[in-house]
């Protein structure tokens, strides 16, 4: 962000002002990208890639899938720029697009496994390979079952509400809450080791 400000000739700003300035920058870049300016879209990519990748990585717990999903999110964002409305920020819109893609990929993987292999996808081991890494929260999140992980990341890390998560994941609100409770309990167990 600092580099962005410097490149745009801005002085360091307070967080709120900086967010507003960031939204202004995005709005201008979106306007130019809609006009077909690929350089403007690359600028949007550079500004948002880190957040999108972090979200995809936490949801899938797999670096390769996260990279693919990040690319796919930007490809779809480019295709759908015409439908983006300035009522929400570009970052929020892109973030939701990436979250939906990741959830779709997780659900497809689960259902593919059910159809062609049978049964549920095996859960990752809840015991970290290295006991010294037991306090590594990222690693602990990655060991959660896929649905519990998705609900935890979307709710506790990203701040989505249960109603939104339920819609995105195809769950009832009650099931979303149950997954969150289960995820938190598992993570507390890991922290307690």
């Amino acid at each position, binding site marked *: 962000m600092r580099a962005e400000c410097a490149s745009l000739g801005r002085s360091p700003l307070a967080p709120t002002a900086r967010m507003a300035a960031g939204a202004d920058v995005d709005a201008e870049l979106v306007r130019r*990208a*809609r006009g*077909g300016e*690929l350089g403007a*879209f*690359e600028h949007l*990519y*550079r500004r948002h*890639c*880190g*957040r999108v*990748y*972090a979200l995809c*990585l936490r949801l899938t717990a797999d*670096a*390769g*899938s*996260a*990279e*693919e*999903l*990040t*690319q*796919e999110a*930007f*490809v779809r964002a*480019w*295709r*759908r*720029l*015409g*439908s983006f409305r300035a009522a929400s920020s570009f970052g929020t819109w892109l973030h939701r697009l990436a979250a939906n*893609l990741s959830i*779709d*990929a997780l*659900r*497809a*993987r689960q*259902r*593919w496994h*059910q*159809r*062609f292999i*049978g049964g549920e996808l095996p859960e990752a081991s809840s015991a970290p390979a290295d006991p010294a890494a037991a306090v590594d*929260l*990222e690693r602990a999140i990655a060991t959660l079952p896929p649905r519990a992980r998705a609900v935890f990341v979307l709710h*506790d*890390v990203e701040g989505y509400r249960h109603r939104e998560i339920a819609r995105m994941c*195809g769950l009832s609100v009650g099931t979303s809450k149950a997954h969150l*409770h289960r995820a*938190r*309990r598992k*993570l*507390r167990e890991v*922290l*307690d080791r």
Partner: protein
Amino acid sequence: MSCDRVDRRLEELAAGRLLGAARRAAERHLESCARCRQQLRLARRLAREVAALPRRSEPRRDLWPGVTRRLGPAGPGRRDAMVGGRGPGSAWRLAAGLAVVSAGLVAGWLAGRPAAGPVAVAEPPAAAEAPAAAAASARHEAGMDHAYRDLVVAAAERRDRLDESGTAALEAGLAELERAVAEVGEAATFSPGNLRLELLLAAALRRESEWASRLRQL
């Protein structure tokens, strides 16, 4: 308040959002329960660590070249970039074509119009068309496919409201949809972890769910 009820409200308690009588009851329980006190400490620690998680993470490589390859020549707002760039081969293109056919057939029937003909098929399907109900029955017995079963059940319940051509269009649409999903799924078995196949499968599965809910509204 029991341990179980405290456990369900730990995060509210840790964040100071549990108020009034419920808070007092929880605090009374905590005074006499070492286990719940420990769980509360862990809940607070978890909340702190979650808040401290980095919101950005850099991928291992620059992903932009891959993005531009997939964008192809199409400008923003154009959907024809979807099939540009690298892809896992003819299997998914065939499956994608079949999915488009299914969309035309079922969506056409749902809209009350004659079923649309094939829109875009890479090559003709090789397998004989299995009756949708039989396929659904087999899969139901295998206990593997709830969404597809729901769709077929929803269709069966409304079949008496259809004329002959409507029934035929529905049967054909379901069979094509089933085959599209099977094609992508089988392709995925040869290319496990292929994200583009998974996304294609996800799209087909999402259509199943959407059509099932539209059928139920009829």
